[in-house]
């Protein structure tokens, strides 16, 4: 007995050791391999890069788990051995599958995320949160590579020298924005700038130089349409300036008193900014026809100049939405004709010709007047003919207004600028930019409260480092950072410079840039990080931090509550756009140009189809709809653009609206949305293989390997004589191709009714040249029939939808795996996938809500272990 006990203990000891490192391949498994597998999958042939010729499995080799998991997939799924080779009996297969499964579950446990650096989006949000300032990386920042479909995958997130150099540069710039270098003292140097009538910038007919003055006749709102400003003056410092301007009124009559506004405008700003949005510096009433000097002391910020605007000029090119401007302008034109009937007669004769505008139109009309022979007597401005003519002219809007202003320059009402001068700065004022910066710095530093330099630095750097490193810092760590700050100060620099240095270091520290430093079960802080970056692409907020600090976050109830809270947070849009954009390949869309024979495509159309999918997925999340909704919903989001694409009646508006649709039909769900159809085509043709592969990868969760390298791409027959199905029939004819293609082609063909931009078609198009136009004709009929490996027949997408809903776990597993890959930043191992299967089943039994699925994944082992 005792000996047996010792032997038992010894065996246990040895087996524990082996379990950690290597497993001997069981005898019955070895026999099976030799009989059914090794012909193709030994070290020499290594078909599909799979070599199973081992007597022992060394689990410390990361490759081993992948290979044996693949073998398990193939055996369990019945895909191996291939149909044309000897098949094992059901029992033989089941025994080997069971043995492999047990070994894999023991050795390929959930987990395995490698040390992960922050992705670009995560980095941006983290810097923003740490320094409490909005922050975006510069254009030259290297983009992340996607690995396994997502750009936040640990393996794919490499740190290279150019990236590190960028991090350092950015750290400096970010530190500058909270702790700027000392500002040069602004010096008060009073200067006077003289501005004559020729020294103003003019656009269109905003002004007219005549008789030594600059004459203005318009009051339109956009600066570039009616206002003038000096072309060589801007305030060099923020200060008070004295503006003098000599103004007179020109032929304004008795009832009109011109009002002139001086406005502040940044010279580098938008030259079509609206006058009524700018700061009013002074208002003058100009009634005299002789020049008077008007004067005002005004405040100008650095970079601003003084705009002159004839605020109440009767003539303006502004248009109101109610279209009252049209009859009003026509009436003004008729008034002009009343003043000058000969002008009216000449204008009616001259009419409007293309590119008549401003001076050249007026000159053409004056030429007609000069020629003579006009019936001035018979010209009646109140007649319906003249009224109609005036309305017709008014439709020329800006062109007419400019021409009328040219006429007004000789008749009035106008204002004349004789000269202007700006003297200053008389005294300095707060520079708005500097004030804003001071506020940012003050908020960053917080109150000193009488502390000495070291204590003050600790009070600032302590919370900063915690926020940056996403966990409490040790005294030693804090001491190091405070140390270099104080040391730097002692070398003769400012206190702020020391902090600046510490901030630079913190933003380059591996503790900031990398997540997941601890193996095994995630502690509360790592859990908070992972959850937060998963659902918001940013570091944990105060609430998450609190639960992590008290150790409560690992309590499933708290973890669930926090997950649900974040799912409702407005930052969940980061998750939605990043996850959906990558999972459904929406990020590819801007590069895909539809064939212009198919349609006129512009940015607004792109926006419509992208927003449809984004809003759709956002609702599924927000309302916790069951995941079947992805496949077969009763709603979608449309505006006039994608509605037109789908042939659905919709109001003529660009606003996205939620719209009900019939479930089970051709429209509805991601398998029918234009965005997905576009992303899985190339703008010109569809390729069933491409769509099939995409479906297997992203919907069915059954990805296939790359095709052999010597297979050429299919060139579609644009004459339409041969169908795409005929062209790829080799897939089914050749046994070595059929292995994968019997999985790929059927679902791909089910989507063939969607053209490269997502419109439904029953026939392939053929394009013919008729005369000098290209005409679209119907070619061969679309044959979308496909038979799945389990015998299910799919006639078109509606059958595919039904199949997926009836077998919802297929999609559920795929979606859950994608979510988990995205959340954990690793490729899933066997243990991960098995857990996902359990979770998907459980969630389905509880109603299959999308939020519930995410919660269940978060509460599972795969998420909670590194």
């Amino acid at each position: 007995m005792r000996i047996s006990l010792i032997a038992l203990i010894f065996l246990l000891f040895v087996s524990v050791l082996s379990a950690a490192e290597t497993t001997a391949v069981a005898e019955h498994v070895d026999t099976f391999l030799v009989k059914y597998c090794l012909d193709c999958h030994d070290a020499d042939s290594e078909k599909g890069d799979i070599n199973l010729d081992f007597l022992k499995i060394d689990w410390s080799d990361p490759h081993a788990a992948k290979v044996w998991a693949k073998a398990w997939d193939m055996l369990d799924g019945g895909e191996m051995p291939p149909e044309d080779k000897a098949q094992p009996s059901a029992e033989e297969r089941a025994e080997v599958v069971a043995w492999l499964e047990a070994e894999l579950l023991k050795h390929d446990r959930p987990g395995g995320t490698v040390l992960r650096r922050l992705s670009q989006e995560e980095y941006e949000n983290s810097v923003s949160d740490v320094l409490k300032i909005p922050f975006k990386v510069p254009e030259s920042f290297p983009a992340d590579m996607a690995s396994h479909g997502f750009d936040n995958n640990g393996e794919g997130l490499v740190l290279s020298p150019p990236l590190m150099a960028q991090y350092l540069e950015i750290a400096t710039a970010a530190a500058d924005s909270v702790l700027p270098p000392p500002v040069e003292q602004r010096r008060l140097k009073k200067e006077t700038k003289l501005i004559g009538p020729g020294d103003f910038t003019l656009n269109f007919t905003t002004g007219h130089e005549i008789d030594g003055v600059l004459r203005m006749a318009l009051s339109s709102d956009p600066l570039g349409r009616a206002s003038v400003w000096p072309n060589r003056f801007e305030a060099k410092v923020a200060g008070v300036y004295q503006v003098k301007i000599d103004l007179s009124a020109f032929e304004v009559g008795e009832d009109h008193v011109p009002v002139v506004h001086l406005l502040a405008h940044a010279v580098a700003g938008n030259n079509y900014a609206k006058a009524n949005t700018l700061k009013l510096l002074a208002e003058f009433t100009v009634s005299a026809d002789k020049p008077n000097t008007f004067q005002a002391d005004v405040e100008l910020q650095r970079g601003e100049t003084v705009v002159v605007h004839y605020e109440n000029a009767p003539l303006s090119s502004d248009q109101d939405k109610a279209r009252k401007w049209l009859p009003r302008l026509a009436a003004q034109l008729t008034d002009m004709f009343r003043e000058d009937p000969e002008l009216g007669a000449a204008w009616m004769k001259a009419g409007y010709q293309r590119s008549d505008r401003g001076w050249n139109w007026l000159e053409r009309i004056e030429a007609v007047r000069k020629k003579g022979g006009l019936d001035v007597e018979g010209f009646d401005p109140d007649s319906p003919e003249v009224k109609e003519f005036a309305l017709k002219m008014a439709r020329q809007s800006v062109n007419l207004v400019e021409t009328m202003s040219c006429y007004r320059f000789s008749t009035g009402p106008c204002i004349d600028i004789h000269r202007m001068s700006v003297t200053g700065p008389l005294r300095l004022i707060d520079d708005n930019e500097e004030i804003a910066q001071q506020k940012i710095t003050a908020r960053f530093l917080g109150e000193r409260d009488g502390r000495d330099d070291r204590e003050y630095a600790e009070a600032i750097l302590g919370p900063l480092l915690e926020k940056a490193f996403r966990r409490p810092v040790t005294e030693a760590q804090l001491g190091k950072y405070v140390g270099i700050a104080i040391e730097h100060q002692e070398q003769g620099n400012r206190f702020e410079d020391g902090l600046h240095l510490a901030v630079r270091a913190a933003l380059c520290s591996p503790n900031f840039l990398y997540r997941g430093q601890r193996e095994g079960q995630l502690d509360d802080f790592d859990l908070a990080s992972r959850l937060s970056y998963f659902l918001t692409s940013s570091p944990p907020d105060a609430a998450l931090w609190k639960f992590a600090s008290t150790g409560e976050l690992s309590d499933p109830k708290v973890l669930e509550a926090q997950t649900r809270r974040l799912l409702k947070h407005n930052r969940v849009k980061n998750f939605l756009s990043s996850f959906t954009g990558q999972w459904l390949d929406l990020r590819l869309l801007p590069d895909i140009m539809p064939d212009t024979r198919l349609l006129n495509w512009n940015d607004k159309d792109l926006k419509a189809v992208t927003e449809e999918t984004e809003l759709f997925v956002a609702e599924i999340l927000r309302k916790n709809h069951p995941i079947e909704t992805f496949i077969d919903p009763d709603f979608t989001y449309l505006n006039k653009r994608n509605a037109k694409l789908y042939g659905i009646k919709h109001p003529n508006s660009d606003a996205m609206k939620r719209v009900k649709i019939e479930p089970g039909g051709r429209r509805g769900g991601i398998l029918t949305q234009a965005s997905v159809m576009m992303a899985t085509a190339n703008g010109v043709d569809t390729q069933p293989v491409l769509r099939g592969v995409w479906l297997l990868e992203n919907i069915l969760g059954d990805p296939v390997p790359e095709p052999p390298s010597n297979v050429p791409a299919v060139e579609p027959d644009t004459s339409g004589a041969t169908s795409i199905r005929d062209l790829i029939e080799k897939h089914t004819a050749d046994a070595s191709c059929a292995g994968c293609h019997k999985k790929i082609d059927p679902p791909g063909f089910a989507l063939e009714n969607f053209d490269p931009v997502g419109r439904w078609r029953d026939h392939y198009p053929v394009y013919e040249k008729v005369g000098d136009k290209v005409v679209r004709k119907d070619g061969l009929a679309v044959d979308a029939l496909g038979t799945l490996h389990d015998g299910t027949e799919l006639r078109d997408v509606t059958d595919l939808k039904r199949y997926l809903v009836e077998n919802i776990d297929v999609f559920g597993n795929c979606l859950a795996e994608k979510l988990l890959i995205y959340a954990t930043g690793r490729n899933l191992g066997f243990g991960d996938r098995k857990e996902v299967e359990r979770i998907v089943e459980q969630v389905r039994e509880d109603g299959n809500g999308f939020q519930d699925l995410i919660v269940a994944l978060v509460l599972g082992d795969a998420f909670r272990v590194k």
Partner: protein
Amino acid sequence: MKRRHFLRSSSLALSLPLLESVRPLRAEGVAAATAPVRRLVTVGTYLGFHTPSWFPKASGRDYEMSPVLAPLEDLREEFSIFSGLDHRAPNGHKNWSNFLTGKGTPGVSFDQIVAKQIGDQSRFESLQVTCGSPGNGQMSYTKEGIALPAIGRPSVLYGKLFSSDTDKARMDYILESNGSALDLVLDEAKALKKTVSARDAEKLDEYFSSVRDVEKKVQKQRKWLGVPTAKVDFTLPDYDPVAPDLSLECEGIMYELMALALETDSTRVISMLVPGQGQVFTIDGEKLSAGYHGLSHHGNDKNKIAEFNRVGTEHVTRFGEFLRRLNEKKDAEGRAILDSTAVLYGSGMGNANTHDNSRLPILLAGGGFRHGVHHAIDRKKETSATPLLGDLYLSIMQSMGVEEERFVKATRNMNDFIL
């Protein structure tokens, strides 16, 4: 205001490092290092030109120079003209950006493809320049289709290129203190390496090698700052001519700064958008009768065309000065900078009057290419061999060691025309 007005010798000298002692901060890619063309400048006018007055009537060599291109007569052998090229892109002002992107909805622009490959050899990967406010025009786009902002103020471009002594002092201070920061984070990484798994330790090695690489780069940058400088005379005016009616003046100054940027190897890729809005220009003391935009919609009115051409000639005059500058300035091997700089001049708008973006005005100068010819591409008898503008871009890229096989719809090249 003419350029000579403000180019006076003054006590304010420009700091330029002697080119011989400037070593590139990283090892050049082999292809790019031996490529004959090292720099790319692209210039586009937003409102285009009156192409019948811009294109010479005859093709081949010895063509009679067109009226608008007359200022370039003495530079005839330094450039080639191409008529009939475009990207087959959509029309309209909004699609002006097709000039460098080759299509309607924006994608990466030609200059940015080049910048991404050779940009790390100079201080700035690329520069985007305009004259005052750019208005609605956008020229250079990133891979994600994001328009890059352009610098429109001469004082800002000047400040970016030529640091004052205070700037240099601060740069050196930052570089020096970076050393302490990097020491600290390396210590942290060493401590971290002791606690992580073997697999993670491997990942951390990326961090170590990257930080050490940056430390070396910092040393090099400090040396670069300390290099003695040559004196060059250049003065900015005391105001920035950013008012719309001064954009021609601004254009001249920007060309000067661009030439200096290339000479100092601050960058090797520059794009300039010459904007056009409603401004009323004063040329030779005379105010034009209409705003620039109004002139571009000349409706075939003779007088408007004449005035539109006056503005066009002003643009071309300044461009000619720029080419002469590049010919005067020498690189480290003593050759004219123009010889190793490809300069593309034109517009994304073919006919501003009708908003047609086909048959763009295209002029290619420099780069050591074969010049002196007006290549008239026949668009009446189009075949699949008819070159696209993108094919010209592919040729330019290839001569820069940038291997691209496709530019939107173009998949060939125009080497036969320019080599």
